[in-house]
């Protein structure tokens, strides 16, 4: 029996505002418990919410970026339930009228395939605090610093058919919110987290199976593993004659399995109703137009432009547009060098990325800036140094030993292009290896490489490789 998996994701992206969605408390991460929870965040008696305009702007940006309808009028509602990390006994969210509806996102799959994923809605809401379960004499501690942090909840259509697709979608969405500058994307700190609705059905069955919701997945790897586990669990269950129950499940990364969250599962009745403390959110057409005009170039468009403008492969263009900062770096390098887009791409994706990885640095934090990298590449271009020597120069640049030309001079790395100088090196090598010379002349062509190596070594790598080859061939033939 063939099974089809149906997945929809609900992603919570914390919006990168300075203050909370309804209060003037800071949203900075990692403060001492409850030092960033003001009277409003604590739900003190008599306090009232006032909406943060940047949270609205960011939500609208997102809506426009995914081609959604940004609502001219949306409404905040109260979602009522009791939980210690929810100070007011309700969460301010959007229910019937969200800020954005009906968007879509293009995801790339393996072997160049791609797919359009529908986004049902995106709405603004406030985050809850955190329960800490360290033992306080058998009690839990509540930290409300996170309470009131603005969230954009992004709900996909059940268009995803595998864990891999789910991850591709989530990564694309992550890229998008970071591109837009509306979310820092930091998953470890919980800035971007995911709930996955997973169900299975027999191939061809038009009816959706019963779904389970896996809560709070905060890494791409966990999303993939949790969904894969869940698919298997549901198929096994049904094949054994059981039934999937609609429930909330939690992923245990240590055991690699999902388990039912029984305690919280009693029939939730959230009693949504419009929040009387807040008025309808109205976003005028001219405001929407201004936000649209302020949108940065989005990943798909940038990738396409890189392919046409710089003649890059789809793969290279994809890698270089992973983040806005990387794309910017690349383009600044090309601009500084006035050309050679492929050479630039190779270096940005190659040595630069390797060094960033090694030192665990962000591109924005690279010790070698685009102008410096372009300076180095220019010296390859004009033959001052070889590509191989350039790698050493790059390392020196990275270590802060000065600018390219100074490093070349100081280390005497300038490429030798004087034919007589190269000839004298070759003559010395030939003279030192009479046996190999004899063998070569007897027909052992493979020894050519040996002579190239020896000559290059004797020139300390500085001989122009092409010249060296030509001259060596001539000399060996005698």
């Amino acid at each position, binding site marked *: 029996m063939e099974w089809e998996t149906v997945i929809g994701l609900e992603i919570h992206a914390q919006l990168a505002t300075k203050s909370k969605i309804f209060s003037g408390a800071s949203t900075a991460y990692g403060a001492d418990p*409850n030092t960033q929870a*003001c009277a409003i965040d604590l739900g003190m008696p008599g306090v009232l919410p006032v909406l943060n305009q940047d949270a609205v702007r960011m939500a609208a940006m997102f809506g426009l970026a995914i081609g959604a309808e940004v609502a001219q009028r949306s409404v905040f509602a109260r979602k009522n339930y009791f939980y210690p990390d929810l100070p007011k006994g309700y969460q301010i969210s959007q229910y019937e009228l969200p800020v954005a509806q009906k968007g879509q996102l293009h995801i790339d799959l393996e072997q160049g395939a791609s797919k359009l994923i529908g986004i049902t809605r995106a709405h603004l809401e406030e985050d809850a605090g955190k329960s800490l379960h360290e033992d*306080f004499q058998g009690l839990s501690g509540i930290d409300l610093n996170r309470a009131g942090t603005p969230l954009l909840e992004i709900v996909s259509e059940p268009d995803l058919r595998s864990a891999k697709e789910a991850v591709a979608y989530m990564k694309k969405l992550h890229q998008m919110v970071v591109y837009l500058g509306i979310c820092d994307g930091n998953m470890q700190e919980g800035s971007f987290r995911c709930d996955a609705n997973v169900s299975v059905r027999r191939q061809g069955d038009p009816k959706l199976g019963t779904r389970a919701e896996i809560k709070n997945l905060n890494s791409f790897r966990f999303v993939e593993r949790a969904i894969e586990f869940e698919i298997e669990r549901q198929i096994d269950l049904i094949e054994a004659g059981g039934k999937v129950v609609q429930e909330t499940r939690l992923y245990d990364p240590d055991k690699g399995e999902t388990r039912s969250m029984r305690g919280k599962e009693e029939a939730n009745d959230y009693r949504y109703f419009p929040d009387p403390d807040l008025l309808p959110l109205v976003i005028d057409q001219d405001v929407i137009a201004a936000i649209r005009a302020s949108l940065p170039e989005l990943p798909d468009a940038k990738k396409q432009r890189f392919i046409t403008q710089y003649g890059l492969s789809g793969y290279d263009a994809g890698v270089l547009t992973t983040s806005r900062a990387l794309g910017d770096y690349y383009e600044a390098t090309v601009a500084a060098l006035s050309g050679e887009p492929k050479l630039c791409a190779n270096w940005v994706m190659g040595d630069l990325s390797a060094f960033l990885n090694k030192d665990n640095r962000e591109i924005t934090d690279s010790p070698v800036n685009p102008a410096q990298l372009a300076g180095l590449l220019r010296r390859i271009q004009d033959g001052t140094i070889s590509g191989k020597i350039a790698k050493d120069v790059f390392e020196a640049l990275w270590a802060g030993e000065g600018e390219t030309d100074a490093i070349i001079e100081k280390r005497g790395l300038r490429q030798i292009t004087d034919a007589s100088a190269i000839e004298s090196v070759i003559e010395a090598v030939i003279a030192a290896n009479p046996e190999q010379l004899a063998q070569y002349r007897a027909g052992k062509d493979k020894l050519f490489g040996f002579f190239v190596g020896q000559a290059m070594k004797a020139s300390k790598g500085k001989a122009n490789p092409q010249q060296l080859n030509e001259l060596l061939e001539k000399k060996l033939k005698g």
Partner: protein
Amino acid sequence: MSLGPAEVGKIAHLARLAIRDQDVPAYAHNLSAILELVARMDAVDTAGVIPMAHPLDMAQRLRVDEVSEANQRERFQAIAPRVEAGLYLVPKVIE
């Protein structure tokens, strides 16, 4: 609409209110009476009437995104029933 003891129990749980067994009948009686009063609304056909959530027809005002609140933890926690290490303490939260 009249409410029986079971329904009162359900609503009380939803509202997180412990109601003593001996008080349930009185609540059931009073709540039913209130719902009966409320049911007078049914006499009017409201089809097509736009619900009115606010007395004034205004739009939400927006706040500039700036941090305006300083840390007042000590002040706020001075009136808290139980705190430790800056945290509000509650019976163990089970997930």
